[in-house]
């Protein structure tokens, strides 16, 4: 059964140095609160996986958390590139393992199904020159079918709009590859904007992403995706995305920012307090939770 715990305890219980983690999310529901907690705990040598590494992974790279990134698109959405990621790749400070989106999500499908590979339709390109793609011979047609290897993260951590006390996780808005990453995980943990009594979200099953029995632990983390957005709850804090784009070009500035906003606060509650309640009010969407069933 799902354990409910504080975010700090969840991170120290489940995220180990040198493990392969998938902090999921796609444009929205990026688990910033959890990622920052990983930085605070000083966990090192992680392999960070996500189709779309963005600001959070850039901050984690800047903080020295990552040894490797497995990805298909590393950008700051609508703003530009990821300065810390760029610097790390350009100076050899990090190992990368790179795919296309279609390959990356196929890797998760294999992981979710418990199979060692997945067939894809794909042409060769210079990525497959760098990382030759295997194939199998179709026993029916005799054709060579490209395949990609399964990805089974040691831990997938997702952030959702709603969890119930039984650990059932509900999300809405862009699904990206969040569910596949959850299902492919050896261990699945989550943060949630709100935790409601067991069964109280049961009528909302179109938004169930995984049942509680698949979830090892859940922590309450309101605004846990800030500065990304949570569909139906709050908007993206684009100013911070732009700000990071400037800050992150300079290592000293990066560290100063991390010291102030991550290492310098005791935990996520501290982060929220430091920003202040009023800060988040302007990001709130009209209608708030009521929009769950529309989006």
């Amino acid at each position: 059964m799902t354990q409910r715990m504080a975010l700090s305890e969840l991170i120290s219980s489940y995220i180990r140095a040198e493990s392969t983690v998938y902090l999921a999310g796609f444009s929205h529901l990026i688990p910033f609160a959890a990622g920052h907690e990983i930085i605070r705990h000083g966990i090192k040598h992680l392999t960070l996986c996500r189709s779309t590494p963005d600001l959070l992974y850039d901050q984690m790279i800047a903080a020295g958390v990552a040894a490797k990134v497995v990805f298909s698109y590393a950008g700051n959405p609508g703003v530009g590139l990821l300065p810390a990621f760029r610097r790390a790749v350009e100076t050899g400070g990090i190992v990368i393992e790179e795919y296309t989106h279609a390959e990356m999500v196929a890797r998760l499908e294999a992981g979710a199904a418990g199979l060692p590979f997945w067939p894809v339709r794909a042409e060769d390109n210079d990525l497959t020159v760098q990382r030759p793609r295997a194939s199998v011979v179709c026993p029916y047609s005799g054709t060579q079918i490209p395949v990609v290897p399964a990805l089974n993260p040691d831990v997938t951590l997702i952030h959702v709009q709603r969890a119930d006390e039984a650990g059932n996780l509900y999300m809405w808005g862009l699904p990206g590859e969040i569910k596949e990453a959850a299902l492919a995980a050896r261990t699945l943990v989550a943060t949630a904007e709100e935790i409601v009594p067991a069964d109280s979200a049961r009528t909302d099953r179109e938004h169930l992403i995984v049942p509680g029995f698949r979830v090892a632990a859940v922590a309450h983390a309101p605004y846990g995706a800030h500065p990304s957005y949570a569909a139906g709850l709050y908007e993206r804090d684009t100013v911070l995305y732009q700000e990071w784009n400037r800050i992150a070009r300079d290592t000293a500035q990066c560290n100063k920012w991390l010291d102030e906003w991550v290492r310098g606060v005791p935990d996520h509650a501290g982060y929220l307090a430091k920003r202040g309640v009023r800060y988040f009010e302007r990001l709130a969407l009209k209608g708030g939770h009521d929009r769950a069933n529309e989006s």
Partner: protein
Amino acid sequence: MPTSRDWMIIAAARLLQDGERVLVGVGVPNIAANLAKRLHAPGLVLVYESGVIDARPEKLPLSIGDGTLVEDALAVLPMYELFSHYLVRGWIDVGFLGAAQIDASGNLNSTVLGPYESPRVRLAGSGGAAEIATYAKRTIIVMEHDRNRFPAKVDFITSPGHPPGARRPDGRGPWRVVTSLGLFGFDEHGRMGVLALLPGHSYEEVLDMTGWRIPCLTDEFHYSPPIQPEEEAALAALRSTLTIGDQK
């Protein structure tokens, strides 16, 4: 006064036809596709690799994952389903992409400048660009025209263009390239050539800004019609949907 960037956006928008299903890439293609939908192609089906089918964004989306794409969309699918059931199955009419570099065969580079193992500039990477360029029925590329971005051979092939010496046999692959200088197509050998020039630009300028001796595919360089008032107005209106600080 429209800038050459405006011209590029409008010229790209004009290539999209009403009712088509267009898989919209980040950046300028996103602006152009949203512009087309507000002008001559209200039935344009905007598809995003984020999983959105038939988006009807109120505002210009800041990224392919912007919440405005989700609000009134027909469908919001897991990425896997969008790629596997729609894109690679041939249900996308137009792949509408930008890139950091394009070469004479229409190969696109969105991955790296310089060698992959020791990059000069590490870019974002493929995302869906590899599959979009190869599985959409045809591809339109939109990008600023600059010598560094139009080399004879791209530093890295993220999205394969036409094979050596020929166009793709099934009509797929690069079809048009819209730049800040003009409109380009591909000859029967799959090599890029000039179709038209944007006002104020010359073939000599194109030659100067292109890393290979790019031929002309037509005798008629004039790009017509000029920007229409409603196009300019629609572009301004689209940009005005962004809040201050988000302008692009």
